[in-house]
């Protein structure tokens, strides 16, 4: 068992898929010699060659568009979009071409493409480097969307995503890249599509994914000192969404607080809230509450901590839920 950062765990996971399947390609901006700006693809080009780890021109639509052609040719591309805010030039290829290809070809053309996107804020970056665009992709039929929150999941989820024959947008919480965990590579991982209770509790459910899982775990630890027993649920897969696990948790706790960095309006929390009230209308003790980024452009970094949900804002929402 090795102690790995999330970045290194992703790197090891990618390495494993490339060893297992010669059709796996890694492509993106600066992914080769540099190893990616976050070093997630470090040394892969050295070990697998320039033919399989491709330093591309700086053109995101080109990255996804050519990956589609490579997939048609039988390859299994893993595309890196350098930062969340840089994905939009590729948005047309992702939404209009990649997502629809399997359906429009009546299943004859498979698109085993993984798009890795470092996402979220909290690293003091300039504009376009801290966004949470997951809802755009979760809204699109034909795409699957996942987000890892810790090194162990990172190691396994990236491999599961690459092996899937469906196109997957894989969100990596960039501010957690350097957090470490012991990664036992010999275990059998959960299904990529399953949510997981990462901290069992009884009084309310905190639902999060990606960077906010740790924030919620910290909030639950703090609440415990006040005698409150919070459950934390890591969604892991944003589309498809593991509702049975969500419903099971909320049925027990009867209270739900959804936490994400993305803006509130028509975010993941909106959809989850609608489904929970539909399923658990008579069982809830309080309305579903959301703690999110604000409905503003991501702010300059000196005030980003005010924008991002933190322990206090999460606990404030828990108070409102419990006092309802």
């Amino acid at each position: 068992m090795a102690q790995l950062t999330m970045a290194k765990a992703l790197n090891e996971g990618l390495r494993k898929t490339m060893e297992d399947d010669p059709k796996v390609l890694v492509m993106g901006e600066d992914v080769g010699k540099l190893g990616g700006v976050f070093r997630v693809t470090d040394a892969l080009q050295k070990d697998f060659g320039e033919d399989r780890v491709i330093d591309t021109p700086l053109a995101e639509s080109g990255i996804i568009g050519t990956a589609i052609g490579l997939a048609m040719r039988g390859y299994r591309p893993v595309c890196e979009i350098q930062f969340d805010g840089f994905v939009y030039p590729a948005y047309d290829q992702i939404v209009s071409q990649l997502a629809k290809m399997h359906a429009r070809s009546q299943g004859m053309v498979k698109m085993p493409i993984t798009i890795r996107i470092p996402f979220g804020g909290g690293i003091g970056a300039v504009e376009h480097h801290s966004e949470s665009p997951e809802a755009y992709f979760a809204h699109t039929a034909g795409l699957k969307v996942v987000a890892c929150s810790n090194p162990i999941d990172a190691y396994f989820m990236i491999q599961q995503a690459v092996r899937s024959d469906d196109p997957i947008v894989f969100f990596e919480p960039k501010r957690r890249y350097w957090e470490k965990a012991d990664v036992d590579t010999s275990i059998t991982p959960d299904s990529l599509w399953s949510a997981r209770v990462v901290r069992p509790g009884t009084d309310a459910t905190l639902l999060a994914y990606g960077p906010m899982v740790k924030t919620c775990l910290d909030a639950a630890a703090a609440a415990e000192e006040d005698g409150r027993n919070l459950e934390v649920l890591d969604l892991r897969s944003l589309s498809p969404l593991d509702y049975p696990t969500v419903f099971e948790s909320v049925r027990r706790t009867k209270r739900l607080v959804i936490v994400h960095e993305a803006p509130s309006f028509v975010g993941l929390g909106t959809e989850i809230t609608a489904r929970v009230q539909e399923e658990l209308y008579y069982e809830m003790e309080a309305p579903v509450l959301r703690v999110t980024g604000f409905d503003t452009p991501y702010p300059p970094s000196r005030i980003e901590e005010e924008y991002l949900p933190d322990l206090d804002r999460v606990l404030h929402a828990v108070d409102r839920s419990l006092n309802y």
Partner: protein
Amino acid sequence: MSLTDLAVETTPVATSTAAGPELVQLLTPEGERVSHPDYDINLSDEEYRGLYRDLVLVRRIDIEATALQRQGELGIWAALLGQEAAQVGSGRALRDQDFAFPTYREHGVAWCRGVDPLRLLGLFRGVDNGGWDPQDKRFHLYTIVIGSQTLHATGYAMGISKDGAVGSGDDSKDEAVIAYFGDGASSQGDVNEAFVWASVYNAPLVFFCQNNQWGISTPTANQTRIPLYQRARGFGFPGVRVDGNDVLATYAVTRKALDDARSGQGPTLVEAFTYRMGAHTTSDDPTRYRLATELEAWKLKDPLERMKAFLYKQQIVDSGYFESVENDANELAARIRKGCLEMADPSPMTMFDHVYDETTPLLEQQRDAFGSYLAGFAEGSH
């Protein structure tokens, strides 16, 4: 005025019928065979007759489909009228192992790749999005968003290089890709990115631009200040302008570009200078934006008439030949009409099929709920 002159004009001028001296031509509008130092072909009489037959049948498919749209059997149709030679010439230049990425107007190329015209009608009727197997036909599904497919073609061609299926010297194995697009799409970012990528990776790819002078109502002068084929130079690969109404020249130029691609010499941009004789689609009215005189000038360059004149002059056909082609066209049109009228609407439930390779529980729930809802009507509970 030629398009070359537009580069020094301060006011963009609407479309032109003159292509300029750089145009590669092997057959004049009068059907005279001319030679070209870089591009020549020597086809058998049978091949010449075959190309003419293709032109006639492809035009007939187009005319029948337009009629079916007018009669309410198709939602819309994008006519290829006037572009038959550009499509048949380039389509017939492809080898079996080559792969084509079309726009939504490549009915002539589809014909050359063996795609049943009824599949094209199915798309425009609205029963599916094409329905042919792209791998089987080596012909991708139509791409509606202009330019997107040029990147797919580039990626596919990069894959060919990775597979080592280029430059081996074995003509039966080396592969090439052709990406179709138009003068309008030449302004798209994706097309320009495809130029960059294909050049940088030396992809075995032919960019085949049918400059039909109009993007709906937008003339080519609004897309470019230099002849489109000259753009290739800035990206680092050769460009050539061919008479797109000359099936022989289009065939020769495309074949050379494909041979170059297969042998490892990288991409070429072919600009087929042609004209959209009809409307953009059956929903369009070109009389609002272009002059009848322009259309009349291009009618004199008709791709079928010049091939017909050539066949007569070569004395390689008799009246029985033209009659048999006409009979084939009539038969094809009748089959298309019958097939179109018989084309059943798909079950509403099929919209849930194939969204994913591995479907999802939520989608299955939605399908089941909708299925029950529909079944309720059958049982009379609604």
